[in-house]
């Protein structure tokens, strides 16, 4: 319990740094943020009004303190473009993004770990080579390119899945899953490549350990030996899955654009075009917090994999 608290506290400086970066972002622009937000058609008066409304006439540290204070009370501000509270905007967009992320993650874990283990077990053979070629390729082809290839093949040529769009889970689980197959496969490919490579490298190293030789010597079957190896490889693999979350969140932005899914990624891109800074800032904050939180959970899960770890 003490450890949990200590780990929780350790995330605070990271989140604080994120907050500073995100706050300063808007002040990074060479011009007046108010003028930038107001757009090309705004008059001087409009800009002055916005200036006061945004609190830009206050000193920087005061603006930051006010902003942090509101954040702490769960207020992410109001969208300049739609005049809707950002928390509301985000919660409307959460379902598609969360669905994509969760299914992609699941898909990755059930594919990449067996694939990486297979490659390690058959290291040097053509199976291993095929897996590694796939991993390098998936890492090199742009996500949106694969996305369009998938749409072209499995939605246009073979009408198996919808071309674009998202069906809410409330409108039926079947259609919901069908609308998610292509985006999730698309996004998972990069992630699978990353985790497969890591799994292969880790398992390969462990297969050279003494205890594996002992296990083999006492006549343990190949599968059981791999089981031993995998359990010991769990921590590096889990760490990679955690670091990959950043990749996943970044990829969601692209995938949602390709498949025209009204999720949080799409929201950011729309907000960038509208200079809607409160929304952009909030999405950055929320994704960074998600990243930190998931990595914290992964850290805490190490004990499940390795009971020798005591906190």
């Amino acid at each position, binding site marked *: 319990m003490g450890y949990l608290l200590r780990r929780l506290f350790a995330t605070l400086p*990271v989140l604080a740094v994120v907050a500073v970066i995100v706050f300063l972002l808007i002040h990074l622009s060479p011009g007046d943020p108010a003028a930038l937000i107001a757009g090309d058609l705004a008059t001087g008066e409009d800009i002055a009004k916005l200036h006061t409304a945004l609190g830009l006439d206050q000193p920087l540290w005061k603006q930051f303190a006010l902003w942090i204070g509101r954040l702490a009370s769960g207020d992410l501000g109001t969208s300049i473009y739609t005049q809707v509270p950002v928390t509301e905007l985000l919660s409307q967009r959460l379902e598609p993004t969360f669905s994509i992320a969760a299914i992609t993650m699941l898909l990755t874990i059930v594919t990449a770990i067996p694939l990486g283990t297979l490659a390690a077990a058959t290291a040097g053979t053509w199976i291993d080579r095929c897996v590694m070629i796939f991993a390098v390729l998936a890492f090199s082809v742009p996500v*949106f390119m694969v996305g*369009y290839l998938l749409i072209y093949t499995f939605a246009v040529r073979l009408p198996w899945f919808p071309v674009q769009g998202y069906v809410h889970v409330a409108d039926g689980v079947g259609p919901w899953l069908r609308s998610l197959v292509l985006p999730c496969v698309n996004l998972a490919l990069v992630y699978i490549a990353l985790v497969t490579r890591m799994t292969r490298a880790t398992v390969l190293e462990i297969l050279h350990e003494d205890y594996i030789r002992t296990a083999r010597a006492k006549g343990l079957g190949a599968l059981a030996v791999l089981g031993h190896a995998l359990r010991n490889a769990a921590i590096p693999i889990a760490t990679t899955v955690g670091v990959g979350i950043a990749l996943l969140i970044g990829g969601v932005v692209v995938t949602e654009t390709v498949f025209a899914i009204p999720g949080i990624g799409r929201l*950011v*891109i729309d907000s*960038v075009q509208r200079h809607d800074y409160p929304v952009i800032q909030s999405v950055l904050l929320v994704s960074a917090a998600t990243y930190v939180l998931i990595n914290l959970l992964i850290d805490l899960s190490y004990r499940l994999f390795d009971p020798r770890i005591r906190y």
Partner: protein
Amino acid sequence: MTPASAIPTADSGTEERAFVVPRWRWLKKHPTLIVGLGLLSIVTVLSVAAPWIAPFDPQDIDPLARIQPSSHEHWFGTDALGRDVLSRALWGGRVSLVVAFSVSMLATVIGVLLGLTAGFVRRADAIVMRFMDGLMAIPGILLAVALMAVIQASLTTVILAITVPEIPRVVRLVRSLALTLREQLYVEAAHAVGTRLPTILWRHVLPNMVAPLIVQATFVAAAAVLTEAALSFLGVGVPAQTPSWGNMMAEGRNFVVVAFHVILYPGILLAVTVLAINLVGDGLRDALDPRLAKQL
């Protein structure tokens, strides 16, 4: 053959090889490196030579020849404005290569400066690393997108926006290397005889980091090419009139169903370039130091 005469032969097998065997045979042992370098040189030559070998002006609009499939005149077909896809694809390579090179150089230089500071100046360590942790927590593309939202879009700003999220990876690598090198006897000895810190870093520490840094720089370059394309694709990259692979694919996405070729060819070139850089990275890593395999 007596056992005595067998010994020198065994020796010559290992000892002399380093002297006698020409360089290309060392390369031959690393086929990924060769394939990667080969592909990368082809892409580079084609991009550099674009002004001379492109059959058309990349900006030439031909309203009568819009969205045409591959033909004898237009090998890669034409796009929605009737521009020649092949010519634009050749010019587009320049943007990607400039981005790849600039981002990896910038990220490496800044990363080395910050990483060495963190590794050798104890008071700066915590500050630098907490800042890097924060930067790393924000997904790279999101950070780049947000940066592009506040700064005017140009090639330079795109390069900067892609560089910032890449810096923490370099800093972490440099710092971890610095922590080991700091304890080396020759570094301690240099300290002991009164060598100043900058000299120690330059003469004794940096040269020992070169191999992993080069490998890391190639991976940064590959990521940069992909991010640049993604930014253009999302509409926040280099200005739309610049022919870049990302811009071509962004424009082509509205015609995907009727004219897949508009995004197919730049996509293939982009993938080949990134693949080539990744292969060079993998090859260099294995050739320079196989122990890096798990770190990078």
